[in-house]
């Protein structure tokens, strides 16, 4: 069997529960990512998504299991893995441009100043911020800050991009605009991306596959849903695709009705769901009415 680009094997995280016992947040997390894939992970709050992402980033340590990227075990953070944090994490004393220059210099220490600057400006332009190069983060709106943060991550061209709810703090309008930008950049660069989101529509718009996580404690990645919508996608037209609604209904049903009890395959890998060909394993409860699933989707988005 050929090795995947990223292999996550048997991750678990245990915290003391504060009463002398132990709390297993998630256990036996197994999945693999291929090069160039865009994968979103969805699950209820507190199931451990951020923890998994931080383990992949090398910022946190798992209690058990390991992560192998390109055949090498991930131990600690590294430039080959870029992270976009939910709260942007820009350095507030640096301008937008210099925040990116900082990252690009770290990535390619031998580059000339001029080359670093040109490269950094190019990525700021990609997110439509060429007019705000010299502004400090405090002089930018939340949406603009997140754009800088995304530009910083893409500018270093990491082999794996990790995004933790990058649009969680943005209003719906701004979120839509930046989602479009992210789609555009991704079509251009085809980076491998692993992203956390609470937004079902966002996940469908962006992902090749969507991981569904069951509720904690002892959360698992139960299913992996293939999104069968061809690229390039656009927010304005994706609604017209029948696969879109099918996928959406499936995700909402999982989150509302099945996330408490869902389990992965016996070997611990997520059940593969291909809606276009019919579901290989479990089927969603199709009796659910449209209005109910709409309300649920909104609740999940909130």
């Amino acid at each position: 069997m050929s090795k995947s680009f990223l292999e996550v094997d048997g991750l678990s995280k245990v915290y003391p529960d504060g009463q002398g016992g132990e709390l297993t947040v998630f256990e036996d997390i197994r999945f693999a990512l291929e090069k160039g894939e865009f994968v979103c992970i969805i699950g209820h709050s507190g199931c451990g998504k951020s923890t998994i992402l931080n383990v992949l980033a090398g910022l946190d340590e798992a209690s058990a299991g390991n992560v192998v990227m390109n055949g090498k075990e991930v131990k600690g953070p590294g430039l080959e893995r870029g992270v976009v944090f939910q709260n942007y994490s820009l350095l507030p004393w640096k301008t937008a441009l210099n925040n990116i220059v900082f990252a690009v210099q770290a990535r390619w220490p031998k580059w000339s100043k001029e080359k670093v600057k040109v490269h950094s400006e190019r990525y700021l332009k990609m997110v439509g911020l060429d007019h705000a190069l010299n502004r400090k983060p405090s002089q930018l709106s939340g949406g603009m800050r997140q754009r800088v943060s995304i530009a910083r991550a893409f500018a270093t061209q990491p082999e794996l991009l990790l995004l933790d709810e990058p649009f969680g703090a943005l209003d719906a309008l701004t979120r839509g605009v930046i989602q479009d930008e992210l789609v555009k950049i991704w079509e251009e660069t085809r980076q491998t991306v692993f992203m956390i989101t609470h937004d079902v529509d966002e996940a469908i718009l962006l992902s090749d596959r969507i991981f569904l996580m069951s509720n904690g404690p002892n959360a698992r990645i139960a299913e992996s849903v293939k999104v069968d919508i061809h690229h390039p996608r656009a927010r304005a037209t994706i609604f017209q695709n029948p696969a879109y609604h099918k996928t959406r209904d499936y995700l909402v049903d999982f989150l509302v009705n099945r996330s408490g009890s869902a389990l992965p395959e016996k070997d611990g890998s997520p059940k593969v769901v291909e809606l276009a060909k019919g579901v290989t394993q479990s089927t969603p409860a199709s009796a659910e009415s449209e209005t109910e699933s709409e309300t649920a989707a909104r609740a999940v988005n909130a």
Partner: protein
Amino acid sequence: MASLNVRAALLSVSFLILALGLWEMATQPPEADAAMTEYERLMGGADQESRVPPPSEVIKLAWAELSNPFYDAGANDKGIGIQLAYSVYRVLTGYLAAMAIALPVGFLIGMSPLMYKALNPYIQVLRPISPLAWMPLALFIIQDSDASAIFVIFICSIWPMLLNTAFGVANVRQDWVNVARTHELSPIKTALTVILPAAAPTILTGMRISIGIAWLVIVAAEMLVGGTGIGYYVWNEWNNLDLASVIFSILMIGVVGMLLDLALGKAQKLVEYKE
């Protein structure tokens, strides 16, 4: 309607005039009455010496002193500029030495909980000691009054800088440290390009407190060790019963202290950032 600044300035000036006026009236020399003997009149009035000089006299003296601040006519007669320069030199020397120790050690304590726990007891014991209490020991060990005064400045300005540096460094947002980690910055680079700028406002606050304390302490220290400096000058003029000079030098101490604070305030503005 004049702007707030203009109105404030007008009010300030009126307060000054009012205060100076009251002071002037309260310190008029008594009428040279007939009861005064020829001898007394010759001596300029019997109670002349115990009288607080009126502002006009202080201003006259200030004018004379400030028009030639750097004259040097022997050990006990130097211009106010020279005396202030001695004091500023001592303060800056002691202060810079304190900085050279406090910043690196503060960094160390801030980064390492182990070092913090190990060094904290000593800091807590040494910090509340009045800087002047060190003076006899300093004089005995160093055997030099000038260096002892500098040492006292060193010891009093080190604590606020040390503690603020440690606090600032320890409380740098984890997110920013994570940014450094995900970009594989070396520890030195992380310290210089992320932690230092992040903690700089807190560090500068400590440095500003320190310079204020140092300037307070130098006057007392120089009164003790004597020789030169503004503290010695005040004490010397008091011994000469030249109260106009005493008042004038008090004002100059205030002015220089304010300038030192202003300089640090400017530096603080430079490193400030908004989140």
